[in-house]
């Protein structure tokens, strides 16, 4: 009853444009109690009414898309190595161009469930040794020719085999080959069963290119590539023959502004309508600007410290425990990430991974006494950690740890190195180093990539046989309860045994103009998992 009364007090439609903008801003920022209060104060309505406004606003934002307009997007990095060949995509700007130009077989929804894209269905056989993909008919390439199974089989097989340069080759190791079984049907022949296969078919690098090509900007996607200058920009215009709804804008331009301050300035002054990677120091500036919104998507973007188990001091379990207990996790989330993040529990899985996250596992807390005890037991009184700004907040996180170590008489030296060349020269080489990983779409791929025994990127060199067994078994398990138990056991193993310290996860923080509607929130990458080109429209 109270609800009804307050609802009649003020409706979303009656708001002035600036108040509507405020509502839109709150809806996107994931509104907190404090922000509802703010709205209530600004519009002069009661708290309950303010909450209603937000829900109405949410509905208005999800309204029917309009066609037209254009958008400029600035990523944080680009260079002469910008690619149009999907198998070599490694950066946000490549992923975005890929999303605009090409299609994958499968697309990730906001909750990470696999959705049909160029594949209309994907079914395993009884023992999951084969997967059958039915492909969409009536899809045309930008050059007018017809899409068929030949293109899909060719594109997917480029990731497999001895001589491939595909960056996801090792992620797709469970697949033996792709085979054409009809003009619009293909099969994936498996080396080992994998219930997550459809999800893997939606990775950034699995875009489908024309048979015999390396992409070259000819795709089946929502936008046609007009021009492409590596390290400068690309221009895309709407594909009027696109095979489904979407592609609402007339044109998009994709570029990068490497300087973080300049990037934020370009957003606020209106030169760019979308920018990636807002630095925590600039949150307030973006939030207080009238024309733009800070888009903060919870994700499992880990801020990690690797203690290599195959060398000193990481081989000593007490040393690792000391490093884990000295992390002031709450302070890191609050101060370093300015609240746009979540607590880490020394495993790479966060609640953003959905049901596979083990919330039963007790949160490890900041405990200087325990840290002191373990450091003492380990016999070490100092260590050197290699730090590069691999993602925003990592350096400040290490400085926080250094200060807290000093208080308990442990000397944590920080060796600052540049990100340039970091992955080849420092990561997986120096005994203590920092790491970040893009969030993987499934808990299994996330755990397998970092903790699979003997894996290429097992970056703490922690090899646990039970872990390997569980990684395999969980892929074949179909009972949700048993599956969850397995994932919990794996996270507990990593939490207790590995050399990984993960004090916090960062949200994905981007900025967009207020009139951009229909933003996806896929947590796998910047700007809605780079899925925005197909969905956004201008109000």
């Amino acid at each position: 009853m109270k609800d009804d009364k307050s609802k009649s007090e003020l409706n979303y439609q009656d708001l002035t444009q600036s108040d509507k903008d405020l509502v839109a801003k709150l809806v996107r920022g994931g509104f907190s109690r404090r922000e509802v209060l703010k709205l209530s104060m600004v519009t002069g309505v009661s708290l309950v009414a303010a909450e209603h406004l937000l829900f109405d606003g949410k509905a208005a934002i999800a309204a029917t898309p309009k066609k037209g307009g254009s958008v400029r997007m600035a990523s944080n990095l680009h260079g002469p190595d910008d690619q149009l060949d999907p198998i070599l995509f490694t950066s946000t700007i490549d992923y975005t161009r890929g999303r605009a130009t090409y299609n994958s077989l499968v697309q990730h929804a906001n909750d990470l469930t696999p959705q049909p894209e160029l594949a209309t269905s994907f079914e395993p056989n009884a023992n999951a040794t084969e997967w059958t993909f039915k492909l969409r008919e009536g899809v045309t390439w930008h050059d007018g020719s017809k899409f068929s199974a030949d293109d899909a089989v060719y594109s997917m097989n480029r990731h497999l085999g001895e001589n491939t340069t595909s960056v996801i080759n090792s992620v797709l190791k469970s697949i033996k080959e792709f085979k054409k079984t009809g003009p619009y049907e293909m099969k994936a022949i498996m080396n080992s069963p994998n219930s997550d296969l459809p999800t893997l078919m939606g990775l950034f690098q699995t875009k489908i290119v024309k048979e015999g090509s390396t992409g070259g900007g000819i795709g089946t996607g929502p936008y046609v590539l007009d021009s492409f200058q590596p390290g400068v920009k690309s221009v895309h215009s709407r594909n009027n023959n696109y095979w489904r709804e979407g592609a609402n804008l007339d044109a998009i331009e994709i570029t990068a502004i490497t300087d973080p301050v300049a990037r934020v300035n370009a957003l606020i002054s209106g030169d760019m309508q979308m920018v990636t990677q807002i630095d925590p120091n600039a949150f307030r500036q973006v939030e207080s600007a009238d024309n733009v919104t800070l888009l903060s998507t919870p994700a499992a973007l880990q801020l990690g410290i690797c203690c290599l188990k195959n060398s000193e001091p990481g081989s000593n379990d007490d040393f690792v425990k000391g490093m884990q207990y000295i992390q002031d996790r709450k302070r890191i989330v609050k101060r370093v990430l300015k609240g746009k993040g979540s607590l880490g529990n020394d495993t790479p899985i966060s609640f953003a991974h959905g049901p596979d996250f083990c919330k039963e596992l007790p949160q490890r807390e900041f405990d200087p006494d325990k840290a002191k005890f373990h450091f003492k037991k380990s016999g070490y009184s100092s260590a050197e950690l290699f730090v590069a700004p691999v993602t925003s907040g990592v350096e400040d996180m290490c400085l926080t740890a250094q200060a807290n170590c000093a208080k308990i008489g442990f000397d944590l030296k920080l060796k600052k190195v540049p990100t340039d060349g970091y992955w080849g020269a420092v990561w997986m080489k120096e005994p203590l180093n920092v790491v970040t990983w893009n969030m993987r779409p499934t808990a299994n791929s996330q755990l397998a990539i970092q903790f699979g025994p003997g894996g290429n990127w097992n970056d703490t060199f922690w090899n646990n046989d039970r872990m390997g067994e569980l990684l395999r078994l969980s892929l074949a398990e179909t009972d949700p309860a048993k599956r969850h138990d397995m994932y919990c056991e794996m996270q507990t193993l990593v939490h207790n045994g590995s050399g990984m310290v993960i004090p916090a996860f960062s949200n994905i923080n981007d900025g967009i103009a207020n009139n951009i509607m229909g933003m996806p929130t896929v947590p796998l990458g910047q700007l809605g998992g780079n899925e925005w080109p197909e969905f956004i429209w201008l109000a």
Partner: protein
Amino acid sequence: MMTRMVMQRIGIGFATLIVVSIIVFIATSILPGDVAQIVLGQSATPETLAALRAQLGLDQPGYVRYFLWLGNMMTGDLGISKAGGATISSLIGGRLGNTMMMAGFVALISIPISIALGLWAAMHPGTMLDRIVTFGTLSLISVPEFFIATVAVLILAVNLHWLPSTAYMTGEETFVELMKALAMPLITLVIVVSAQMIRMTRAGILNVMSSPYIEMAILKGVPRGRIILRHAFFNAIGPIINVIALNLAYLVSGVVIVETIFAYPGLAKLMIDGVQTRDLPLVQACAMIFCGTYVVLILIADVGSILSNPRLRNPK
């Protein structure tokens, strides 16, 4: 005599280019990681690394790669970017034009202003205006360009909304739109290079003003303005030309900070990107262009100072 000197200079310049190419080659080889490792980044595996290295010809020894490159360079083939697969000439082409355009506009604005202000300050030493110019230029020389750029963006773009904060060009703009897009980097660079040229002009002329023949002219009662323009300026022009040449070379090769802040696609940023991706052919090509620019501009400055000095023009 003149021709011989110019030929000699060109020869030295050529040798400099070769030495630079060797140094750049060695320097990029010493850096950790090669292009295959950088391209594959965190997701590199031994197998994909080997496959990509073979594809790019990186499995050949360094000196072989160097001479292959040198040979191609001589025939005008700059090669293919190891990182992205585009031809180097296509990567450099547009950016060289952008860099030259920016350098040209900055020179057109800053050289007349600098010489005029420098002369003016020299004509009225010790006056209020001279002090303002001296103080202003000294302060601006001391302030790093990224600071000038950031303050300019904050005031002119973010607060006043007069100018765009980035030099983003669509390629279809009119001259006025182009000027507006380039205004911010132009303002920054004009401030940075003018300060130095103004000081050099003023100092050069005041230096000449203390020589005996100027004293003679003063005693004869020649007006100060005439002394400076007729007698002093041409004798001071040698060092002024030199400082202008150095500033022009800087505008072509050294403006990476301004290019980064304004996201202006110029050559200097391309070279840094090349280093970061260990894209050797690209780094080499940029280094050659920069080195060539220095050689040519300094050659012009030398010839200019000789022409302006009768003692050098007609040696005994």
